[in-house]
């Protein structure tokens, strides 16, 4: 999920390949499938550039991290108890989660427009947070609620 703010920035704000709505749909497709990040990127790539686009996007999302883990990851594992590294990771994680929260607010601003959307958003959050339902279940429930409550 940490990649969502950066994807939103690049895909929606900078290059304007997708609208905010399409971007949310792409993330939704990622969430209901295994491997959310690669699937989301592949879906975005498909919308922008067809099959070639989806392959390029999936590879570009996957390869740098894969190479990082392969070549640098073992040093991080070796020194993960090191106070300096731990401090850095804590600070950076706080920042990353803050960025995700900020991106969520930006997306919510464009999507929460009437009472029905407020209800669906609160119900989905409660389902996740209070009832600990799996994410695909939340998406399915929200899709049904959307069909019932949609007014054009």
């Amino acid at each position, binding site marked *: 999920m940490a990649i969502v703010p950066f994807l939103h920035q690049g895909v929606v704000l900078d290059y304007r390949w997708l609208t905010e709505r399409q971007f949310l749909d792409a993330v939704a497709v990622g969430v209901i499938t295994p491997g959310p990040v690669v699937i989301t990127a592949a879906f975005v790539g498909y919308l922008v550039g067809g099959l070639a686009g989806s392959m390029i996007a999936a590879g570009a999302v996957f390869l740098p991290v894969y190479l990082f883990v392969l070549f640098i990851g073992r040093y991080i594992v070796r020194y993960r108890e090191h106070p*300096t590294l731990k401090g850095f990771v*804590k600070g950076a994680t*706080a*920042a990353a989660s803050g960025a995700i929260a*900020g991106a969520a607010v930006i997306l919510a601003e464009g999507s929460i427009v009437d009472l029905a959307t407020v209800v669906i958003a609160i119900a989905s959050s409660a389902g996740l947070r209070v009832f600990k339902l799996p994410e695909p279940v*939340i998406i399915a429930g929200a*899709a049904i609620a959307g069909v019932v409550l*949609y007014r054009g």
Partner: protein
Amino acid sequence: MVQALFYGIGLAVISIIAISAFRLARATVERDVRLWFIFCAIAAITFLSRTEIALLFVVAGIIGIFIYAPFWKNSTDASTQPIIFVGPRLHKSASRVWDSWVPSLSRQERSRSGAVWPSYPSSIKVSFSTTGG
């Protein structure tokens, strides 16, 4: 129909993103007010500027180092020691700071210059137990 379907799905996705942000923050930040301050600051910057500034993540990481690993404090507490700690008698304090930042490099240097590992059994124990071999 399809539009109605995605009308709800978009909101569910926003909820999932928001909840996962707080879940990630809680897992690492726990109850540290200073890190929640970073969280709020970055969230506000992201929202207001509508851009992701990757440099801010690095800055936040460095702030994390200052909070959790104050290397200049010269503490004897084991939790703030560099991993490969050879001791002030062998190295100047400057190289101790270097050790704490780039441990693998200085270890290579040390073995090349034939520095005294075996004469400091305690430091060996520390390095092997924390690095896991």
